[in-house]
């Protein structure tokens, strides 16, 4: 996409599955990784992002555009983040946290981590294992020993409900 005169600078990002995305530089520099490239003058052509696939990058760019359109108002940014993450399934969240880590976007990383934590907390161990496909590689004896060690943490409300 050729830059038209008078429009803000746009950058072209390339996912690891060769999808190309145009994004305004002002939004893209939310990523410290990209900002460093821009500052070092390495952002002229296409910026390859080897650790991010197209689907995830599209999501991240939606987030970049959304959050950078909000003026400095932490409350509004927070509610945008909450809304943005509310409909994401776990697989997407996991991809996004990895992408946020690679792109060095701490605000997205914190928000996604908090969201995953929110899903996990207060749920029973069985629920978390099922939901996230965590393989229980403890022997029954080992599992009983860990449970005994942290006995006090297993008291209280746990739920198997999906909500």
């Amino acid at each position: 996409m050729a830059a038209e005169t008078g429009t803000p600078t746009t950058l072209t990002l390339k996912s690891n599955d060769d999808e190309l995305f145009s994004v305004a530089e002002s939004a893209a520099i939310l990523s410290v990784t990209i900002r460093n490239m821009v500052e070092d003058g390495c952002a002229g052509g296409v910026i390859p992002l080897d650790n991010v696939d197209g689907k995830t990058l599209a999501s991240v760019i939606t987030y970049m555009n959304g959050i950078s359109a909000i003026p400095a108002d932490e409350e509004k940014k927070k509610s945008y983040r909450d809304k943005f993450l509310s409909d994401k399934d776990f697989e997407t969240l996991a991809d996004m946290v990895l992408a946020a880590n690679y792109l060095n976007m701490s605000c997205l990383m914190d928000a996604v981590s908090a969201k995953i934590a929110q899903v996990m907390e207060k749920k029973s161990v069985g629920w978390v294992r099922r939901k996230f496909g965590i393989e229980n590689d403890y022997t029954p004896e080992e599992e009983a020993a860990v449970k005994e060690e942290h006995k006090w943490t297993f008291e209280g409300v746990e739920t198997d409900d999906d909500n």
Partner: protein
Amino acid sequence: MISSSRVAFSLVILSAAIAVFSKLPKNPLPKKKKPSSQCIVKEEPSSQCIVKEEQSSQCIVKKEPSSQCSVENKDMISELPDDILILIISYMPVKCGIRTSILSNRWKNLYRYLSNVKLNCGDLLSRHLLEARSDHNSSLIVYSLNRFLKLRSGSEILSFRLSCCLSRYQFIDLISSLGGLGVRTLDLICLSHCSTNTCFFPFEFLSEIPSLRYFRLSSCILQQPTLESEFRFNSIQILSLSYVVVCDGAVEFILSNCLSLHSLRIVNCDCPSKLCFSGPGLRLKSLYIFGCGDLEEIEFYADNLVLFEFFNHVLVNFVFKHAPRLESVFLDVFNENVTPFVFGKLAKDLPNLKSLTFTKDHYFKVR
């Protein structure tokens, strides 16, 4: 030779298994570590498996290799790097975070890297004990707490916050457990709804946490220790007391024990009528006093004091014996006109003052 009823029976099992698969797509199958072309489902004795079978309560189903088996089981969360998993755990209440250790070996020790720990009675006691207040058994709290801290030995806790009700001796135990954990910020709140409402805090034992820099104490009693041998230095730089009963001699004791103290806040405390901020080599730079009703006189002999902020409903008698570096004073006295004092005695006592603010409405608003 296989009888037709056998075939029908196998089909029932197979379709039951498929039903289970489609209902619970994320159900982790017990992974046998063989690179199997078959997927073996061991059903727990469950209501889902309604198969009339004579010999066994388990039903073992042999199923054709299916793409579902490999895809649905992918444990993506455990594949995340350690620092991200620790970040995720840090967003949970501590109790939930520790509970993740039961998930699998991958998760067993991750909670140990949490560097900010916040706990309260409710976390440490089970719910039914907490509701029956008469049974509010602090020894159980201490047991859980010590167990937790013992398991933490070897990894640092940067900040530790506990809102709970402990006795003096339980606090001494806690402080000694925290000693080797590198705690820099300590925040202790003695909850008032507990049966033992009068907690004498063992301030002198804080020397056992050599890494401590910031200490906040709420809702308990500070006494001057009776024994001379209790005189131990600690490394606190910032101290904040709120809703604390400050007994005679306690502030003087603190100043002589905290040789690195540069900032002290005393908020809504019951103080003796006279407080004296003096001491050899006192490093105190900033002092903030807010709403301490019983105060009548404050005496200063503070070499390094730069900032003094005072919010109260009445003015007290300030005795500036020695405050050569005091640059800024902020006075907010609600019930009195401080103008004659400011332009009279204060101006005379503090000729080097660079900034002076006095108002009478802020105190009321903040309160």
